[in-house]
């Protein structure tokens, strides 16, 4: 009797697993385990090799790049930006790359150390919370080059990169204030990390420049991934009169769809989440940074320091409007575009403020 129950149970599990696997028609064969996934890209195509000088090609082949990420690479957010930049840059340069996603802060040092020990020459620690772990490993592997996202302390072989997407947030604030009819706009965020605070302050400053009377609401839900709660936070803001929301987490756009208000995406083009309500998204592209850093490591010219790739470098910009720009008053769009150019030429500097908010 007992055995039969067990057998039936296993059949169920097996059947449901097969069922899930059977649904898997669109996936690439490379999609594999969750916690620590390593993907290796094939060597440079032969045609590309012959076009290059042989010396450079030889050098290229022995540099391997790794990235350690704090969340899933398909979050359409911070971690997608990291993965997409890594993939594009490394495929273009023809170097081998690997990554580990959803690495917790406690595991970061072990994972980074593992890559260093396996001979990866360049390692990106893609989280503001990985700085200390990277520092420890960097001391033990002086030949390896480390790049940690927004780290405070650097060494000779450990540099950092930040994401000046607050420049884009300033423009988003201008745009939001410009299209708001109620005079109230919102910002829904996960946690008050330094980068998020810089973004929020810039968003407020931009909004105030456009409309000195504007009211900017903000909420932190206390978690990066809790869509139902982010949606509720957004609904609360809409009830207080907000009619344009800056979405810094999954769920906000869903509220915008339900309550028919505008949303502004962040990090990647999030228009697909709400084609009628996501006006545009503040994009952050890590590709130029990763490409340049990798090239420097290949050439042996890399120097420690902070790499900041913002609007001027084409790394921060607005996603396309997907035909929704007809909803933006011409003078607003003009002002936003003028400000974009001013930031690009260095004429205007977006204030960088990471102080706590109430």
């Amino acid at each position, binding site marked *: 009797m007992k055995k039969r129950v067990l057998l039936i149970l296993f059949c169920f599990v097996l059947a449901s697993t097969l069922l899930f696997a059977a649904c898997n028609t669109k996936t690439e064969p490379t999609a594999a385990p969750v916690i620590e996934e390593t993907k290796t890209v094939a060597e440079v195509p032969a045609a590309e090799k012959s076009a290059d000088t042989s010396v450079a090609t030889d050098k290229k082949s022995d540099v391997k790049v790794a990235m350690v990420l704090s969340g*899933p690479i398909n979050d359409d957010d911070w971690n997608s930006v990291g993965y997409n930049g890594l993939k594009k840059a490394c495929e273009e340069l023809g170097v081998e790359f690997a990554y580990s996603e959803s690495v917790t802060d406690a595991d970061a040092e072990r994972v980074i150390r593992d890559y260093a020990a396996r001979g990866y020459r360049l390692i990106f620690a893609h989280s503001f919370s990985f700085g200390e772990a990277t520092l420890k490993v960097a001391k033990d592997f002086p030949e390896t080059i480390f790049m940690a996202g927004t780290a405070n302390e650097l060494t000779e072989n450990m540099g950092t990169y930040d994401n000046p997407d607050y420049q884009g947030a300033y423009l988003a604030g201008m745009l939001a204030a410009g299209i708001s009819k109620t005079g109230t706009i919102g910002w829904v965020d996960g946690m008050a990390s330094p980068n998020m605070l810089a973004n929020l302050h810039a968003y407020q400053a931009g909004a105030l420049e456009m409309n000195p009377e504007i009211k900017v609401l903000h909420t932190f839900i206390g978690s990066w991934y809790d*869509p139902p709660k982010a949606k509720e936070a957004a609904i*609360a803001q809409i009830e207080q009169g907000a009619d344009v929301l800056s979405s810094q987490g999954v*769920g906000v756009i869903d509220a915008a769809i339900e309550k028919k208000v505008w949303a502004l995406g962040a990090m990647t083009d999030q228009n697909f989440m709400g084609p009628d309500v996501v006006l545009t998204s503040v994009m952050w592209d890590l590709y130029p940074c990763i490409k340049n850093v990798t090239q420097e490591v290949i050439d042996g010219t890399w120097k420690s320091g902070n790499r900041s790739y913002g609007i001027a470098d084409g790394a921060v910009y607005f996603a396309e409007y997907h035909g929704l720009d007809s909803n933006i008053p011409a003078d607003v769009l003009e002002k936003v575009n003028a400000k974009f150019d001013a930031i690009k030429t260095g004429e205007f500097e977006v204030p960088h403020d990471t102080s706590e908010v109430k």
Partner: protein
Amino acid sequence: MIGDLFSFLTSSIFEGFLTASMRLAIPIMLAAIGGIYNERAGISNIGMEGFMIVGSLTGFVVSYYSGSVWIGILAAIFLGILLGLIMGYFEITLKVNQVVFGISLNLFCVGLTSFLFRIIFGITSNSPRITPLPTIMIPILSKIPVIGPILFQQTALAYITYILVLITAIIMYRSAWGMNIIAAGENPEAAETMGVDVIRTRYYAIIISGVLCSIGGAFLSTASTGLFVQNMTAGRGYIALAILVIGRWDPFGVFIAALLFGAADALQLRTQLFNFDIPYQFLVMLPYILCMVVMIFFSKSSRAPAALGEPYDRGGKKSEI
């Protein structure tokens, strides 16, 4: 004065707060109602979080491919039965430590659902979405001040939850089977002597628990939002355990306790907008602090089923594991 109060109670901001309270409460309520069955029958279910996340994924994936949220919820129910059976096999038949098994199941389910989601949809920059269940306004009833927004401006799944609360109360207090469940959780030996099949009763209880937790999880991905992200239950299964204690293992108690928790959460999201001089972290903590404070006051009068967490052996031997 009374006119002022009335206009406040019917203002859109206050009504918004009330509807949000129930929306935030429903998933926790469903899981906690499920918990009533298994805990009353003497089985602890620490694995509610895991049950919920499996329900979220199943509900979402099947809704996505079938095009119907209800088929998705049916699938979530099926998986809930399956998980209930698995948990029953380990906790009732094999008599493994219930806390250890529950926690390992939670960790396993978080990993499994993330993995399966990736297998099914791959790494795309366009994460899949479904249209969530719409809000249904019950005619006339939804217009009642305070009660209307809380109870009658919700999704269909919320209305089903109310019915489940009522059915649970009837089963627990008005049916012979409910008495069997309670007997199995208070004194299994005596129940067995009186002809109650304790093992079978406990199996049924844990399966019902699995189903309700799974629906609670599916609520998050098919009614609250129309999407799935890894670990999207975000600890709601654990909070359901606390709600169960605060609600004193009583369907109506659980209903009120979950609603209070939802209200505290809805309140803190709104308080943040007023820019009081309080760090947001404290406001985020509010519902959890409320839980703990309430537990301090209720700890004396709240009594867990006597045989909760104790494996039952037909021969009267106590298991060593």
